[in-house]
């Protein structure tokens, strides 16, 4: 007995069983997921490399939304960070009775600012925030901060306002007394970092005290931040 050719036979069965179909789908899905993962990692890695290689300051990855502090400027007017939207902002915390760290920070920042091309300076604002509101009234800030560069703005405020701003940027300060005789005779220990905020209001970079001295690298960072925005 011979087989009839009309017999569909096993050859005409679907080549891939329903179970096999699932395997294919699974492979495609896994491949797609892998491709996505690889491209995601590549993007992150290149962002990481970019930051690692090109910024002189310590970069926050990813950049954080900059806390929009409410303080008082050197003219006694309310001042918020968001007023400077569109400009790169460099600021640090300090106090005017500070003999060493603060004048050095401000004079280094003045040197950096003056090393920027004129057109770039228009897009940069330097601020100095007091952590000693008891002695640093707006009038005092007015006489102190612009001395280093007339474009610099001094900020002060109530104790809670300053505490809130400092906390948001992880800054620390404490009153340090050498003698208890004069209530106005004290020093303030404080973190001496400078923060860079991008024109779109992102907190992107941190500089330690010693880094500010290298104006060339500071200028490069500022120009790069402005170019990226």
């Amino acid at each position, binding site marked *: 007995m011979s087989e009839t050719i009309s017999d569909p036979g096993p050859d005409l069965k679907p080549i891939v069983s329903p179970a096999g179909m699932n395997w294919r789908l699974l492979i495609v899905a896994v491949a797609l997921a892998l491709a996505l993962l690889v491209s995601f990692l590549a993007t992150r890695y290149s962002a990481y490399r970019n930051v690692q290689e090109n910024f002189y300051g310590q970069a926050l990855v990813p950049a954080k939304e900059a806390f929009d502090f409410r303080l008082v400027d050197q003219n006694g007017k309310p001042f918020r960070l968001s007023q400077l939207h569109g400009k790169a902002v460099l600021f640090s915390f300090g106090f005017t009775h500070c003999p*060493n760290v603060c004048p050095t920070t401000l*004079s280094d920042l*003045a040197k950096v600012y003056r090393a920027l091309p004129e057109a770039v300076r228009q897009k940069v604002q330097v601020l100095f925030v007091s952590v000693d509101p008891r002695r640093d009234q707006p009038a005092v800030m007015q*006489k*102190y901060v612009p*001395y280093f560069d007339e474009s610099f703005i001094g900020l002060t405020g109530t104790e809670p306002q300053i505490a809130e701003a400092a906390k948001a940027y992880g800054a*620390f300060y404490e009153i340090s007394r050498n003698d208890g005789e004069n209530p106005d005779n004290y020093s303030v220990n*404080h*973190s001496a*970092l400078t923060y860079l905020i991008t024109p779109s209001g992102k907190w992107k970079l941190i500089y330690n005290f010693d880094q500010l001295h290298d104006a060339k690298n500071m200028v490069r960072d500022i120009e790069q931040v402005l170019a990226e925005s």
Partner: protein
Amino acid sequence: MHRPVLLALFSLCVSSQLNFADNAVIKVERAWIQAVPQVSDTTAAYMRIINLSGSPLKLTSASSPAAKTVEPMITTRKTQGGQEIMGMQSVNELVIPAGGSLELKPGGDHLMIMGLNVHPREGELIKLTLRFAPGDQKFDLEVPVSKEEPK
């Protein structure tokens, strides 16, 4: 003005020597005082103090007719919550090792000048007297006021 003359004038301002029995013991170089706004009554003096003698010297105190007090200070640095906190502390003495030097610089050891009674203007010279132990060796110098570390 000729360059050598300028250089000589410059070194007159920034370098002085203290001689005991015709032997230079202390040499001070690159001295400067940070110019500060008039509203501020505190500033700092920076310099390099070189001990040319064979035994250690201690900078114990300083004074100036321009201010109430001048004190040797160290800068303290500690890390808290990932941030470096800078502060300062008055010390009784700063040691200059035999044949070595002491660097007083921004962000480091310095002479804190408190209670300024005349405002030091950029370019002016401020009289400063340093005192060293052992003994009470006095060392007078005139220090230029500058907005930034002189080159």
